């Protein structure tokens, strides 16, 4: 049987020749992403800004303007209506009502009643009410979780490898996370609690590739002590290339199936992880590895200190 080989044996691509070009592109993309977040803002869900969300599936396509005017005639404040998942599924967002809990109940049940009365066969799928206090906490917890995950992983890699690797990992994660933020700013897909899970999954899996490549760099540093750092990185990247491609494709394959066949509610989450896997694969080659050059990793970094100091040692 002839087996599929996506990457031919013994590739010898000069990845590092492109490192400066890639760096410039990455910096531009990162800055652009963060600018987009600043300019366009994120479409934050009720989880993070508080308020009410009513998710409804209608029996047939509806006139959104009519729905909007019907909702606003209920006197429940400025409603935002957006399509969500399918052509007949909508999210109705209501601001936090002034009169506390009782007012919130009234607003939600009024909208619910109107929908059931005006649209035959419509069903209310979900109602979420989040107070301002809780939403602030959720936003803080989410930001904290993502930041700590990035730092925690960087520190772990620093301990297992060398400090240059830890910093490289952190920069890579920052790059990947910025891109995903930019993606959400540009698409205006809703950022809710589930998206925090997506970010954390991306932080975990983006580094998966990086760690495998770092592991090989470490191995080669020990094996080929006389090799220059650039050819050594190229060697490690070429050796792990097939694995990088196969694993990333496998993850993307599975996620694409989930995107196509899976539940609408986790569309944003799945798309974010899918994109994150793609960006993570790129960044583990073009950010993680060249960072080591820029941070001054030397071929003798993994030698024991005493070994390095012995006059007439291998490197002398």
């Amino acid at each position, binding site marked *: 049987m002839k087996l599929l080989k996506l990457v031919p044996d013994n590739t010898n691509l000069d990845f590092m020749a492109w490192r400066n070009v890639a760096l410039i592109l990455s910096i531009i993309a990162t800055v652009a992403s963060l600018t987009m977040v600043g300019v366009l803002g994120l479409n934050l869900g009720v989880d993070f800004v508080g308020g009410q969300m009513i998710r409804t*599936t209608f029996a047939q396509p509806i006139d959104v303007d009519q729905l909007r005017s019907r909702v606003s005639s209920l006197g429940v404040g400025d409603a935002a209506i957006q399509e969500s998942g399918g052509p007949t599924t909508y999210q109705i967002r209501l601001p936090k009502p002034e009169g506390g809990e009782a007012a919130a109940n009234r607003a939600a049940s009024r909208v619910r009643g109107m929908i059931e009365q005006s649209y035959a066969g419509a069903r209310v799928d979900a109602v979420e009410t989040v107070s301002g206090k809780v939403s602030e906490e959720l936003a803080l917890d989410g930001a904290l979780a993502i930041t700590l995950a990035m730092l925690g992983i960087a520190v772990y890699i620093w301990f297992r490898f060398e400090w240059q690797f830890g910093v490289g990992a952190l920069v890579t994660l920052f790059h990947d996370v910025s891109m995903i933020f930019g993606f959400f700013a540009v698409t205006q897909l809703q950022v809710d609690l589930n998206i925090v899970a997506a970010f954390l999954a991306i932080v975990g899996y983006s580094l998966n590739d990086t760690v495998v490549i770092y592991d090989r760099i470490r191995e080669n540093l020990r094996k080929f002590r006389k090799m220059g750092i650039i050819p050594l990185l190229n060697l490690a990247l070429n050796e792990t290339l097939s694995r990088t491609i196969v694993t990333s494709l496998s993850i993307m394959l599975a996620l694409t199936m989930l995107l196509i066949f899976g539940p609408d509610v986790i569309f944003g989450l799945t798309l974010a992880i899918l994109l994150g896997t793609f960006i993570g694969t790129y960044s583990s080659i073009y950010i993680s590895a060249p960072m080591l050059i820029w941070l001054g990793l030397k071929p003798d970094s993994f030698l024991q200190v005493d070994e390095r100091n012995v006059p007439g040692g291998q490197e002398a």
Partner: protein
Amino acid sequence: MLDFPRWKIWAVSLTVAAGILFAIPSLIAGTALAERWPAWLPSAKISLGLDLSGGSQLLLEADSADASKQRLAAMEDSVTTELRRAQPRIEVGDISTTGGRLTFMVRDPTKVDAAVEKLRTLTQPVGLTGNRDWEVTVVDSTRIMLTPTPSGSARALKDAMTVARDVVRRRIDPQGTKEVTVINQGLRRILVQVPGVEDPEALKRLIGQTARLEFKLVDLTADPQQVLEGRAPAGSQVLPLADGTGAMAVRRRVMVSGDQLVDARQDFDQDGQPVVSIKFNTSGARRFGRVTQENVNKPFAIILDEKILSAPNINEPILGGQAQISGNFTVETANQLAISLASGKLPVKLNVIEERTVGPELGKDSIQKGTIASIVATLAVILFMLVTYGRFGVYATAGLVVNALMILGILAIFGSALTLPGIAGFVLTIGAAVDANVLINERIREEQRRGRKILDAIETGYKEASTAIFDANITNVIAAALMYYFGSGPIQGFAVVLMIGIVTSVFTAVNFSRMLVAIWIKRKRPRVLHI
């Protein structure tokens, strides 16, 4: 590396078999096979999170202002009782609870020391800190002031939250038969999850009521004009009527309180109006009997949560310990009050600060689509593995399938709920689970290219790949652990699936798939390796 002793084969096979066995009940649930599944085999099924099963979730938070108010009121009650019981009796007056502390005047200045002495017995030391829960001080030589200490308030809140949790549970699920979740979260919150409930309004009405029931005598000496202005004679207080039509002055002293109830039911009075029938315990009944005996032909007020429900006249002493509460109820509100009273009063008012309701159809839809997506994703990855690695792809596939089943089995064993993001976590894990196998297989390919013999290449492949497998998975564990720690319900479901998936995928790759490889090599002794 390829040396698999018999015991190890057994150990790995048994672990795999156990994992699969625990997964089966969840897989065959709802089919005809489920009925033929022997009872002595594991039957635990994966529980579904609210976003999949449909239902309501409420996050309740204690109202701290109300908590300290209730605590002060309880202290006032014990103080007056204690001092009245003292021999000789210590008369107090001008009781005030403003400013978060309890102050009162001792009428006979010579008894101040005796009163302080008595009060010391009411305060208790908190833990090992040496602090007491209340600080007793004398001001202006005749006033005694009780100030709650921070450590005392903290302990009181902790106790109150524990009681509140039990009360909430009893109210939502009086029979104890439903699958409700009521747990304390943090210092002052309670999380309530009720599957299947689509409209949480009734739920909130049940929890929203503190249900502090008190019987107090109506103060007939009060000047109606002053009552309108909210002022009452000494020893009395003005309380609003529940129907909002006015206010009434009642004696501060509690005749009997809801703490002494043993039962409360919805009932009808002789006119067919819904009422709540209550029954006191022995001491409550005795006290109720005595007070009604002493106050025949006077009205007493039935007070619920600081509002007067009704103020009937005492026509005759009520001695049997049974009474009826009327007050413009519907059958539903009477029933709710009965449940609230029977479950005991909430030691602190609870506010709903977050509420999520998911309809059952959406959940069903999600499960169906999630299942299809999981199966298609698994098949796609299997196909990819087979065309890429041939025979070794078969081993990776076997590992993948076992991995998927073990994740389900472990979820069922631990009883952690599968959530919608959890489905995404499952599919992600399926895609990523082959990574360990990919690492190994690629390494074997490489070692072979370097000219190693088959056995040597496989041995080295497993050995060299193991550090990368370890480090690459640790990063995911770190992310998943933080996700679990900081996340709420659905995200935790995602984190749990990821963590289980990481463990099972590493286990299946380095044990199960390797075992299959080892067995194959031992039997066939292959001379060429297609990988």
